[in-house]
């Protein structure tokens, strides 16, 4: 064990039926460092963390933790907690119906009777100390996601953890909230906590981390101090290939030239969740809606698809006035929509890959005209291959696939209906770099084949690479439209911040 290491994992192995999820992986965490654990989906990050937190049992290898003689035995999340390992997950694992204070103390060596006053006093002190804007007696569900996340961290910190694992803590936070979280992380680091940071956002890794460990296909690629590993190299190491793919995208980056024909046009369209806006898209055009979280970009495209209650406005498809009041209307008019919240609005987790793929087409045909089994198989095969969906079989429940592959399944679902206009709301969120690139390439290819695409992403570079027109939103209004030379990061930022034109 190294001198200042709080956690040493050596030769960890874990396999699942059919795959070796971890193959002799080493991981070392030092006192007071933020250590990014990087890798694509399926690289083994989650498995490694679950072994460390006692959710999975390791098959081989050893774990040593500072202050514990010999090997640490972790067989359950409780064991992990007792050993000083705390985890904050992407999905908030607190109880929304309890108060902030209670969420911080419940389940820890409690007495038989709850002393509310003590709870609240202690909670207030901790929240204060860490600068978390929450009141102890507040119901957790009344806090924003970022604050809930911080309460989870506060709980972890108060348990005197030596190792704090943050698993994708930022994926549902906006920029300001991320900054708040980073402030808290740096503060903890200075107090000597070792932090394991798992994220998909490369910029964030460089913003806070001291060290990076890269995994690929269940194997350790290496451990690097952050300043010795430039971003491009990190990506290359994660993907296990050269930067050809990136270059290829830059090449593909000559965006498709939109045709003249207007495919979809909306005039003062509004829904229960969005303000009236005008919008048109031409054949073969890729456009994007950008803006901060909560600026109304998702709400706007949901209005186009009829996903929220439409309250006004006129819509023309191929120049003909139509009424789109519900998603089925939109589908009949050749519009497809990949929703932002994959788990809630996208996949049906318990249905097979095949059934998820044919779902939209089946809906279009109507449920009294069931598709032939052989057709279903054929379509599923075709798209599993075309999008290289990694799945054990077509019968695998889609819920057991990785995030990126789930996203591809939903893409396949829409592509199968051959829409004229496809809306992709955050198709690259929470998925690995390789799949992100694939999806961007696919978008450009679809546009070349004369499909109109609206592409929304939190990562502006992705949108700059793929879109030929960017609609900028702020506070639920369109504040600018950028094309051609204006499509630069600086310009987008400026428009988001100041609003160049109305």
């Amino acid at each position, binding site marked *: 064990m190294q001198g200042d290491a709080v956690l040493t994992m050596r030769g960890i192995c874990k396999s699942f039926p059919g795959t070796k999820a971890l193959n002799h992986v080493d991981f070392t965490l030092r006192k007071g460092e933020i250590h990014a654990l990087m890798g694509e989906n399926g690289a083994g990050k989650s498995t490694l963390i679950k072994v460390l937190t006692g959710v999975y049992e390791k098959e081989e290898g050893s774990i040593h933790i500072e202050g514990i003689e010999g090997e640490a035995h972790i067989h359950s999340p*409780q064991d992990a907690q007792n050993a000083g390992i705390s985890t904050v997950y992407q999905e908030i694992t607190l*109880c929304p119906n309890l108060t902030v204070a209670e969420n911080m103390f419940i*389940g*820890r060596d*409690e*007495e*038989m*009777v*709850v002393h509310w006053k003590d709870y609240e006093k202690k909670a207030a002190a901790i929240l204060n100390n860490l600068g978390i804007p929450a009141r102890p007696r507040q119901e957790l569900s*009344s806090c924003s996601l970022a604050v809930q996340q911080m309460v989870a961290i506060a709980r972890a910190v108060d348990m005197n953890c030596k190792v704090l694992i943050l698993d994708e803590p930022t994926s549902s936070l906006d920029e300001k909230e991320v900054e708040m979280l980073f402030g808290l992380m740096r503060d903890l680091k200075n107090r000597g906590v070792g932090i394991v940071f798992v994220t998909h956002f490369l910029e964030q890794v460089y913003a806070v981390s001291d060290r990076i460990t890269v995994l690929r296909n269940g194997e350790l690629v290496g451990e690097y101090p952050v300043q010795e590993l430039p971003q491009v190299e990190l990506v290359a190491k994660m993907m296990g290939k050269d930067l050809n793919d990136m270059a290829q995208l830059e090449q593909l980056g000559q965006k498709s030239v939109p045709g003249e024909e207007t495919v979809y046009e909306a005039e003062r369209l509004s829904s229960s969740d969005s303000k009236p806006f005008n919008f048109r898209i031409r054949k073969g055009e890729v456009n994007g809606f950008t803006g901060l979280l909560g600026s109304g970009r998702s709400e706007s495209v949901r209005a186009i698809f009829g996903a929220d209650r439409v309250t006004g406005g006129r819509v023309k498809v191929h120049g003909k006035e139509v009424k789109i009041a519900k998603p089925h209307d939109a589908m009949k008019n050749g519009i497809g929509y990949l929703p932002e919240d994959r788990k809630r609005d996208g996949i049906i987790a318990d249905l097979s890959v095949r059934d998820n793929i044919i779902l939209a087409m089946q809906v279009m045909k109507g449920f009294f005209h069931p598709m032939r089994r052989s057709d279903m198989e054929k379509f599923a095969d075709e798209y599993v291959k075309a999008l290289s969906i990694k799945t054990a079989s077509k019968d695998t429940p889609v819920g057991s696939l990785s995030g990126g592959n789930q996203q591809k399944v939903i893409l396949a679902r829409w592509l199968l209906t051959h829409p004229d206009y496809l809306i992709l709301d955050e198709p690259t969120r929470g998925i690995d770099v390789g799949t992100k690139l694939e999806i961007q390439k696919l978008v450009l290819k679809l546009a070349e084949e004369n499909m109109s695409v609206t592409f929304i992403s939190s990562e502006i570079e992705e949108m700059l690479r793929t879109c030929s027109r960017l609609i900028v939103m702020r506070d639920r209004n369109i504040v600018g439209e950028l094309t051609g030379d204006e499509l630069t990061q600086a310009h987008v930022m400026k428009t988001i911040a100041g609003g160049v034109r109305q």
Partner: protein
Amino acid sequence: MSMKKASVSKRRREPLTDSQLLMTITIGIFAVMYAAAMIFMGGGFLRTQQFFDLLNDNAALIIISCSLTIVMIGGGINISVGGVIGLTVMACALFLNNSGIQNGPLGILLTLLLALGIGLAFGVLQGFLISYLEIQPFIVTLAGMFLSRGLTTMLSVNPVKVTHEGFLALVKNRLAIPWLGYTAKNGNLIPAKLEIGAVVALLIVVLVYFMLRNAKLGRHIYALGGNQQSALMLGINVKRTRFISYVISGLLSGLAGFVFLMHKPAGNASVAMRSEMDAIAASIIGGTLLTGGVGNVIGTFFGTMILATIQKIIALSPLNESWWQEMANGAMLGLFILLQSVVLSSRKKKARTTS
């Protein structure tokens, strides 16, 4: 305790939680309903005894409603409670008549233990199947309901009237409260009287209230119902917590059976038939969500009282037919669920726009 209370009220006010809000609505509706009955029906409703009679007649229902609230807050359901009452009543009646332990307090004590034992057995068995074998609570307790009803009929097809003198003497006891009574026409003061069962039911409400609010177990039940996965991650022993919630529910059902027998000392195959449904309705009207995590036993108490008041009003009105009663209950429940979802969704919307 009193010192703690004082400091509690000094703390800064937080907006009402969902649970508190729903409970407040329930109490408000009960107050309005009872006031309306006092104004328009007068007579008995102007006397405390009327209110006490609601408690006397519905003591067993209050207890099983509490038991349902506990499991429902934990995200479960228990529809065997009525069947367990039926079985307990029958078994206890037979035991009192036939065991040969005549008239002493020992016989009564043993009968109480028998009642609790039956409840405990159902609670443990169902709790085990639901928590450790992870079978759907609806199915398990449906089976429990059939089983208990079947056992009841097996014990005796014919009604069994309790003849045990000690028990009958015990049952006659009343808690008389003179200052809540009224003066009859002939000048005699007639005190308001509570049956033992009603006192027990009120004690249970208070006990369960503090258990849910202050005991570690109670808070774990809330956490479990709020989000089971989170509860597990927070270090709560989810299985054991759920198991205990069903054990308590079973115990309370057994106790409710004993209380029922004290109110009407006779066993009968159809005793407390469908009372589990009334208990579920009372819990929901009291602000317990079927999805778990939200609920309050004080609300449940008033939910039971709302159902009881409806029953009384209809019984005293010209509409005294069972279907009016059922329709009124149905309408009340429907109204309540509607109200709940409107209130909760409008709150959510408000929270979203302000944050």
